[in-house]
């Protein structure tokens, strides 16, 4: 029994713990052993919190014995290293924060902890979540368990690799332009990005505040629903968190897809999409249709402008957010500064990696005198057009379906020379961030032995129907159960 515990999904673990088939402590020990065994090839962790995990598991077992089990009692998960964890290193994948021990917990860390979850560690990520391949991490790239020469995607690449390799059944992530959904697609896992404002950003290190949203990577839509129910909800410590009722997402999974209007965007299947990926996605659309969904063509005329819009808005916000790293109060500080200006410039120059510096400088440029109207204001206008396109589409359909990423996982090093090639990876996912919409990626096929994702996006606050659509699709297919060789 014990050697199979890692194969269980969160929902199965919850049932097993409840039935007393195994203890949270046994489960935690088994997973920690596996994390150590696969640490070297994958490089998916920045910190492993073994001691705290075992103590939390023991506490969970005691709580269960006394009838005080929380909704996630004893359930193991890992946090992306962008979430502040009290007393634990929180690096954000950067040299700037490689000595930062957070004095407080992020809102979702707190919520998951109170619900009884057991945190196994903190996962590797692109530096400050800026990247689509995990190659910008100060701690080195994460490797994809499906092929160690490939990237797991990014920026939540460590979280995705951990879940794909069955080192933990669930992981938190953040999604600013696709950073949960794209790595989920590239690793054969499920990635959920909620509506902007659905989940508190308190204690989540900010990259682009009008786009960032916390979510989860799991092995099933049901597991994502279970976690979203705990992490969603109002928090007055995040001024952008919205007070909106939290439905029972698990209960919302049941119900057929009969009559569900699914929008297909013609531009999603134009050039730029890998042919085999397109075929896999079209097959998944046929499955939805066979389940009673009605496929309708919709138009997103400004789709092509979403990536350039994003690369003005996100760097502008990043440039502003990352100005807090001044080498004074926390973070890397340069040696022997000549004066205050030198302290700032060298601390930041040494502490940030190349991609982060490029984004800060792009943002500084588009916000600087003489360029603001041409770039930033213009981008915010185009962003409104993109958002309006979605609004018009959602007047006709309940959900939009298409590919998550233009290709399966690419080789490490393949896209590092040209930033634009890397940026275009997120062409299908960025729109949901610009418009604040919920989206999910669910596995829908394998191309040359590498996973492909089906992307579902709904109107604001439609997590329930997006999750139901993914869950019902998973009842008809078993792509989400596919496991990379050597990790079963």
């Amino acid at each position, binding site marked *: 029994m014990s050697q199979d515990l890692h194969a269980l999904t969160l929902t199965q673990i919850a049932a097993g713990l409840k039935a007393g088939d195994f203890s949270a402590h046994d489960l935690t020990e088994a997973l920690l052993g596996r994390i150590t065994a696969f640490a070297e090839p994958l490089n998916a962790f920045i910190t492993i919190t073994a001691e705290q995990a075992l103590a939390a598991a023991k506490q969970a077992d005691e709580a269960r014995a006394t009838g005080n089990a929380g909704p996630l009692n004893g359930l193991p998960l890992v946090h992306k290293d962008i979430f502040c964890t009290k007393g634990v290193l929180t690096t954000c994948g950067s040299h700037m924060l490689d000595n930062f021990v957070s004095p407080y917990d992020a809102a979702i860390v707190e919520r998951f902890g109170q619900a009884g979850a057991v945190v196994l560690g903190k996962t590797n990520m692109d530096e400050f979540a800026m990247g689509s391949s995990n190659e910008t991490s100060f701690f080195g790239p994460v490797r994809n368990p499906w092929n160690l020469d490939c990237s797991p995607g990014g920026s939540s690449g460590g979280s995705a690799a951990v879940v794909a390799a069955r080192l933990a059944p669930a992981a938190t992530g953040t999604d600013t332009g696709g950073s949960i959904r794209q790595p989920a697609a590239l690793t054969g896992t499920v990635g959920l990005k909620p509506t902007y404002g659905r989940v508190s950003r308190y204690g989540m290190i900010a990259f682009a505040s009008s786009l960032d949203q916390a979510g989860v990577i799991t092995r099933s839509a049901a597991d994502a629903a279970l976690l979203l129910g705990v992490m969603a909800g109002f928090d007055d410590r995040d001024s952008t968190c919205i007070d909106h009722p939290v439905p029972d997402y698990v209960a919302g999974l049941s119900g057929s897809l009969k009559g569900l209007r699914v929008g297909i965007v013609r531009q999603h299947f134009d050039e730029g999409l890998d042919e085999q990926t397109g075929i896999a996605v079209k097959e998944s659309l046929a499955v939805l249709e066979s389940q009673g969904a009605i496929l309708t063509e919709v138009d997103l005329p400004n789709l092509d402008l979403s990536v*350039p819009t994003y690369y003005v808005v996100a760097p502008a916000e990043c440039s502003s957010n990352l100005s807090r790293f001044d080498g004074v*109060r926390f973070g890397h500080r340069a040696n022997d500064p000549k004066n205050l200006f030198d302290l700032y410039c060298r601390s930041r120059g040494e502490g940030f990696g*190349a991609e982060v510096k490029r984004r800060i400088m792009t943002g500084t440029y588009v916000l600087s005198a003489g360029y603001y109207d041409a770039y930033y204001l213009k981008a915010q206008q185009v962003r409104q057009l993109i958002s309006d396109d979605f609004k018009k589409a959602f007047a006709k359909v309940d959900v939009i379906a298409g590919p998550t990423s233009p290709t399966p996982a690419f080789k490490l090093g393949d896209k590092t020379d040209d930033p634009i090639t890397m940026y275009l990876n997120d062409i299908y996912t960025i729109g949901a961030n610009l418009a604040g919409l919920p989206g999910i990626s669910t596995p829908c096929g394998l191309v040359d032995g590498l996973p492909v994702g089906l992307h579902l996006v709904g109107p604001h606050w439609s997590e329930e129907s997006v999750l139901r659509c993914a869950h019902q699709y998973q009842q008809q297919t078993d792509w989400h159960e596919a496991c990379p060789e050597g990790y079963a």
Partner: protein
Amino acid sequence: MSLDKDQVQHIAMLARLKLADDEFDETVDKLSRIVDFVDQLSQAETEGVVPMAHPLNESQRLRADEVTESNQREALQENASSVENGLYLVPKVIE
């Protein structure tokens, strides 16, 4: 190249970033490519479009101006490189 070395030097100064000599040329090249790429926005027809300030077009929530945090100076300063008597130390600012 849409940006020249002087412009990049100026942006780096505004952003308070010291670029090492060996990363400077690459930064000029890649930043230029990014600026060229986002320049396609200029072709978009946006006459009369109200710029979007919030993804759900909500307004910023306000709160009363009250002290809600307790004093945690010692805990917070544990992450600082240089403190003395509860103060952060920086190089001399006024000669």
